[in-house]
């Protein structure tokens, strides 16, 4: 079973590798940012998949990743606003 999990995880790794193309090509920054988003999600999945082979601690790593994976994107959308500290939803948009 563990083998199956690892195969699945390997495939996920390759999936992310494919997505690097999007990060490299863009064209917009949002596109690139999505790459990071995908990597975080895939990372959580991979950690979950390999956790049965190790300690439950790995799930905590996944948890942390799940919690903090989105933060870079938040920083990005804020920084992308006019003064760098706004909110894309503000009326000024």
């Amino acid at each position, binding site marked *: 079973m*563990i*083998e*199956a999990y*690892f*195969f699945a*995880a*390997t495939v996920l*790794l*390759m999936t*992310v*590798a494919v997505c*690097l193309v999007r*990060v*490299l090509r*863009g064209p917009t*920054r949002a596109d*690139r*940012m999505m*790459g*990071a988003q995908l*990597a*975080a999600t*895939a*990372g959580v999945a*991979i*950690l979950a998949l*390999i956790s049965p*082979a*190790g*300690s439950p*601690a*790995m799930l*905590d*790593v996944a*948890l*942390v*990743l799940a*919690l*903090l*994976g989105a*933060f*870079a994107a*938040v*920083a*990005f*959308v*804020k*920084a*992308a606003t*006019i*003064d*760098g*500290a*706004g*909110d*894309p*939803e*503000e*009326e000024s948009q």
Partner: protein
Amino acid sequence: MAPAFSALTLFDVVLCVLIIGVALCSSSVRDLFAATVLLIIYGVFVAIAWVRLGAVDVALAEAAIGAGLTGVLLIGAVARLKITESPAAAVSRWQFAAKVIPASLGLLIASGLAYLVLTVEWRETLQAPVLANLPDTGVLNPVTAVLLNYRAYDTLLETSVLFAALIASWCTTHDDLWGERAGLRQHTRRAGILATFGRFLPPIGLIVGIHIFWAGADKWGGAFQAGTIFAAVWILAIMAGVIDAPNATGRSIRSFAVAGPMFFTFVALTGVLAQSFLIIPVMVAKPLTLAIEACLTLSIAATLMLLVLGAPRRSA
């Protein structure tokens, strides 16, 4: 022992190739923003690599710092500064040399290290004494035992590094902005998506952080990981406009940032009563360690939060 070639090995090899690939891309891609995003992705995979190496504590730290906080730090700056590489700078002979020499040096070092990795017999002799003395440290997590007992002095200096970096980063502000709130003046749409996210997630983060802190003593995690998580959710709340960023002149935030190292130094100094330094008596090892960790966690959280927000800055 794992068989010669299993799915695990395959996974490891693919992971390593991927990490190297991401690093290469990050180093060679023209667009700076892409390079930054790639660094975040890199952080995620390195965290997975740490898990594979059985270093959960490091994995936690890498996940929280490498994939989380560093991303916030760099992406925020890069995206805001709108710095990109110059499309085509004049190519000169020197520029060619400026790539070839580092490349050959990098290659040399990499291959040298690889050669060493494969040929030298490596030794790890400290694991046994670490475990043997564990009962005296009051904690069950050997990594925490090393960080807060065997090599607590490292940790003391390390928190000082954080503290120094904080003051240092404050030092980069404009003179007339001294006393303003850290970073840019954050504002969001009231009850918008960001604001709501910033109201909703921090309590969850708080629990996760406390869990990591608590688990740190006996299982995995610890002050740094927990502190990073706290810092991250704190920053989120600030970025979401839910709470205000503190200002450097505020007494309370200063106390917050200083409390951990101060308590730690104080404990260290009480060691002179026993003609030594930084002694954690076995009798009170667990509570004392936890107390130090708790103070450190709070200070690390505050410090990292302030570091990521940066010095007070003018809005564009």
